[in-house]
C-alpha cells in the first residue's frame, strides 16, 4: 500500500527534476542568426486578423499588402544587393486571438522561414506574437498596433524586433487634445471611447491626460454597440463644447448619426480609426458636419503626395471604393520592408530589422515616415474636417 504512494511521489519528483534539467537544454539551443533569404523570393509573413472581432479591419490590411506586393513584383521585385527577388506572401489568420497569433508567428518564423512579418492589426494579438518573433530574430511591423508600450519591453527598453507604422496613442490623443483646445477653442469636452479595444481606451486616457480644458464626462461603449441615444442624451444636458470620440468608423458613424438626430450639434473629434469613406455612409452625409479627426492619411494632403495619389487611384480601380486608412497603413508597411531590404542590401531577417530601425524620411502614402528610437513611426499628423460628408479642410498640427 505504502509502496504505491511512494512510487508515485518519487515518480513525480523524477518528472519535476527532468523537467527542470531539460527545460534548460531546450531553451539553450535556440541561437539563430535569423532567417536568411533563400531562392528567388523574399518571404514576408502576414499575421493578420482575418476572422473574429477585428476581421473587417484585418481584411482591409490584407488588401493593402497584396496591392503593394503585386506592384513590387510587377516591377521585378525587391532589389537585394543588386539582384531582383520577388516577394512571396505567406498570409495566415490569427482569428483576433492572442494564442492563435502566437502560434501563427511561430509557424511563420520556424516552418515558413519568413524574412519579415507584417502584422498584427491589434495590439493584443501583436504582443502575443513578440516572444516567438524575438526568439527567431525576425522583425514584425504592425500597421496599426497603437498601444504606447507595444514596441517597448517591460523595463522600458525598445523591443528589438517590433515596429509599427502608425501613431501611438499618446501622440494621437495629445494631438486631439491640442486641436480641440487651441483650434476649436472648446473648453468643456465629453469623451466617448471604445472600451473593447486598447485603441479606444488608450486614446481616451491620453486625451484626458493632455487636455487643458475640462473633461466633463467620460463614457464608454463596446465594439458592436448600435444604440448610443442614452449616452448622447445625457451629454446633451451637460452643456459640452465638443465630443472626443476615439474608435472605429463603424461605431463612430452611428454616434455621429444619433447625436445629430437628437440635436446635439457640437463638434465631434475622433482619431484615424474614423478615416474611412464608410463613416459618412453610415452617419449620413447631412449628419456628417462639424466632424474632425486626426489622421496621417488626409485626402487633401494626399493630393499633394504623388505616392498617395497613385495608391488611391489603384485602390479604387481594384476594389471600387475609396481606400481605407488601414489599407494605406498596410501598404506602407510592405514598402517599408522593401526599403529596409534595399538599404541593407540583404533580406536576412536580422538585417531587415536593422534596416527598419534606420528608416528615415520614407515617402509613404501616410506621409513622410521615420522610425524613431522607440520603433514608433514619426510622421506628420493632420486633422481633417468634414462638412456635409465632404472633406472641407485639413489642419497640420505641430
Amino acid at each position, binding site marked *: *500500500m*505504502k509502496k*504505491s*504512494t511512494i512510487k*508515485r511521489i518519487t515518480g513525480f519528483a523524477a518528472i519535476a527534476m527532468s523537467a527542470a534539467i531539460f527545460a534548460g537544454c531546450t531553451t539553450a539551443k535556440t541561437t539563430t542568426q535569423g532567417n536568411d533569404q533563400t531562392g528567388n523570393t523574399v518571404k514576408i509573413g502576414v499575421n493578420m486578423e482575418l476572422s473574429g472581432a477585428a476581421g473587417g479591419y484585418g481584411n482591409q490590411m490584407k488588401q493593402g499588402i497584396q496591392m503593394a506586393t503585386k506592384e513590387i513584383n510587377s516591377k521585378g521585385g525587391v532589389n537585394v544587393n543588386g539582384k531582383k527577388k520577388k516577394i512571396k506572401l505567406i498570409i495566415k489568420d490569427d482569428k483576433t486571438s492572442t494564442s492563435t497569433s502566437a502560434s501563427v508567428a511561430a509557424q511563420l518564423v520556424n516552418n515558413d522561414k519568413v524574412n519579415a512579418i507584417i502584422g498584427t492589426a491589434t495590439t493584443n494579438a501583436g504582443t502575443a506574437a513578440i516572444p516567438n518573433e524575438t526568439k527567431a530574430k525576425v522583425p514584425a511591423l504592425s500597421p496599426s498596433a497603437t498601444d504606447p508600450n507595444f514596441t517597448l519591453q517591460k523595463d522600458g527598453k525598445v523591443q528589438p524586433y517590433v515596429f509599427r507604422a502608425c501613431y501611438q496613442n499618446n501622440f494621437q490623443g495629445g494631438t486631439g487634445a491640442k486641436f480641440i483646445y487651441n483650434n476649436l477653442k472648446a473648453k468643456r469636452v465629453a469623451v466617448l471611447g471604445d472600451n473593447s479595444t486598447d485603441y479606444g481606451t488608450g486614446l481616451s486616457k491620453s486625451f484626458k491626460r493632455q487636455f487643458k480644458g475640462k473633461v466633463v464626462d467620460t463614457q464608454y461603449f463596446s465594439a458592436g454597440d448600435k444604440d448610443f441615444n442614452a449616452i448622447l442624451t445625457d451629454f446633451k444636458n451637460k452643456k459640452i463644447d465638443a465630443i472626443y470620440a476615439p474608435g472605429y468608423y463603424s461605431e463612430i458613424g452611428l454616434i455621429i448619426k444619433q447625436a445629430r438626430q437628437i440635436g446635439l450639434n457640437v463638434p465631434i473629434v475622433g482619431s484615424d480609426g474614423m478615416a474611412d469613406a464608410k463613416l459618412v455612409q453610415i452617419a449620413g452625409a447631412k449628419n456628417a458636419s462639424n466632424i474632425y479627426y486626426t489622421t496621417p492619411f488626409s485626402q487633401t494632403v494626399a493630393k499633394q503626395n504623388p505616392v498617395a495619389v497613385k495608391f488611391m487611384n489603384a485602390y479604387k480601380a481594384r476594389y471600387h471604393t475609396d481606400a481605407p486608412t488601414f489599407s494605406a497603413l498596410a501598404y506602407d508597411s510592405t514598402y517599408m520592408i522593401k526599403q529596409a531590404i534595399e538599404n541593407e542590401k540583404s533580406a536576412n531577417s536580422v538585417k531587415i530589422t536593422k534596416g527598419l530601425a534606420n528608416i528615415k524620411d520614407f515617402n509613404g502614402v501616410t506621409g513622410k515616415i521615420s522610425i524613431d528610437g522607440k520603433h514608433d513611426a514619426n510622421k506628420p499628423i493632420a486633422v481633417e474636417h468634414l462638412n456635409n460628408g465632404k472633406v472641407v479642410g485639413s489642419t497640420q498640427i505641430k
Partner: protein
Amino acid sequence: MTSLLNVEDLVKNFGGLTAVSDVNMHLDDDELVALIGPNGAGKTTLFNLLTGVIVPSSGSITFRGTDGTISLNGMKAYKIANLGMARTFQNIRLFKELSVLDNVLIAMTAHYKEDFFQSVFRLPRFYKTESQIRKEAIELLKIFELQNDLDKLAKNLPYGIQRRLEIVRGLAMKPKVLFLDEPAAGMNPEETADLTRLIRQVQRDFHITVLLIEHDMSLVMNLASRIYVLDHGSLLAEGTPTEIQQNKAVIKAYLGEEA
C-alpha cells in the same frame, strides 16, 4: 417510550387541493406497517412529506433520534435521510448510468469520511477506507445475491432486480426506517413471492421498521403487522390485517357503494 416516528395532524395543500388532510400515524421499532388506499389517495404524497421531498402545510412529524426527539418539519430531505430514513420510489430511481456497486457506495456516503487531499492524492488512508467500504457494500450485495453484477450498469438489470437493488441501496444507508413505495408494482406472482421473502428477510436480519405502500393485497396481508388505509387524503382506518379486511368503510372505499 415514544414511537420511532410520530405524525400529528399532517396537512398538505397544493393550491386549492388538499392532498393529505389531518393524518395521524405512528411507527414503532422493528415493525412492518403497510399503507394502502385507492389510486390518488395521497399515499406517495404522504411518503414525500415524511422523507422531506415536500414540506407539509401544517401538522408535525417527529422522529426519535439518538439524542432525543427531533421535529422533521421543514428539514432538508438529505438531513432526514441521514437521521436514518431510507426510501424506494414508485417509478424506480436508481442511478441508471452507474454500476450496481456505485449505487450502493453512494448510499453509504454519509457513513464514511474521505478527506479531499486523501482522495485526490491517493494517500494510504484513502485506499484503506475505500477497501473497507467496498467490502461492506459487497457483503451487503451478497446477501441479496447481487455480488455477480457489481460492474453492471443499473439500467441494464432486469426489472425485478432493479427493484431489489433499490431496496439494497436503501439498506446501505443503515436506516432505522425503510419506506417502500409499491415494491411489487409490475411484478409477476413469482417475483412478488420472491419480494415477500426478501422484505421479511430484511426486517428480520436488519431489525428496522418498514413502511410499505402496496396494492397487492396478498403481499400486504402476508407481511404487515398493522395497516393504515388512506382515502382522499385522510385516514380511513387503522388496524391489524384481519381488522382491516372486515372494516366496512374500507370495503366500501375499495369496491364502491354496492358492496
